[in-house]
């Protein structure tokens, strides 16, 4: 389990290093890392951080902040259409990630110092 403090709305948090340390501690050289962020509004993404702003523009257009019946519907809908879970390969005790890509948590809600929990499962040998 990995816990991080977030703030928002629509802020990215790079959790790659934390996950890499987690994998190292597990002593698994070959296997799979499964992630799931707890909650109904956050999202996990594999993304080049330099392209994060561009993605936010697209997401804001696709799912506007206001005009919904449910108060923070935009946050729920974003979490649903992006994803709350990821699966990554582990090789030589390191995560295999696409070039320039990081594991980012998207905090969609207007929160400050909010605790987010990412469940981590490592399977391998």
């Amino acid at each position, binding site marked *: 389990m990995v816990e991080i403090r977030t703030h928002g709305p629509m802020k990215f948090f790079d959790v790659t290093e934390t996950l890499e340390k987690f994998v190292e501690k597990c002593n698994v050289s070959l296997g799979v890392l499964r992630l799931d962020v*707890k909650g109904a509004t956050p999202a996990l993404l594999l993304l080049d951080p330099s392209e994060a702003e561009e993605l936010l523009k697209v997401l804001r257009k696709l799912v506007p902040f206001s005009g919904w019946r*449910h108060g923070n519907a935009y946050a729920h809908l974003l979490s649903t259409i992006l994803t709350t879970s990821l699966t990554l390969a582990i090789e030589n005790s390191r995560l295999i990630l696409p070039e320039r890509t990081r594991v980012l948590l998207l905090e969609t809600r207007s929160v400050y110092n909010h605790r987010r929990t990412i469940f981590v*499962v490592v399977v391998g040998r």
Partner: protein
Amino acid sequence: MNPCSCRASRRDVYAKLSNVRYASRCLGNEMIDVIVARMKVESCGYEALDITENVRSLVKQLKLVKGSVTLYAIDRGCFVVGIEYEPNLLADLEDFMKSLGCFERRSSCIALFSKPLTIIVYGNELQLGVFRRIVFVDVSKAKGIKEVILVAEGMFEHG
């Protein structure tokens, strides 16, 4: 998404355990098993059903202690999503799906909603958080029995 007349009955969702497929492999001292089950959902063709308790009950029945469950729907116009099950939010989801052309089965909708949903299981419990539920969404407008695939992977209590 607004409920329709046949939504009320919770008995309409069940897991067909006879169809379970089982595989296992040994990793060091731990046994990792994979179970594939099919859940049957009786749907009126246009509804959003909260299937969380059905999945929870299946996880308990399978005795999955720690690992993950991955779910997805296989019928056209059907999806499994993680979302709060609240009437206003379901109405917003319905509007959003309409705007994406889900009822016309446009690829933009299918690409965004048809992803498998993975939930971590720890201590024989689904780790969903407070509000997130597992919701089966059917916009096919075709009444009938629909299927949800459930892949349970991890360490199971044996015996």
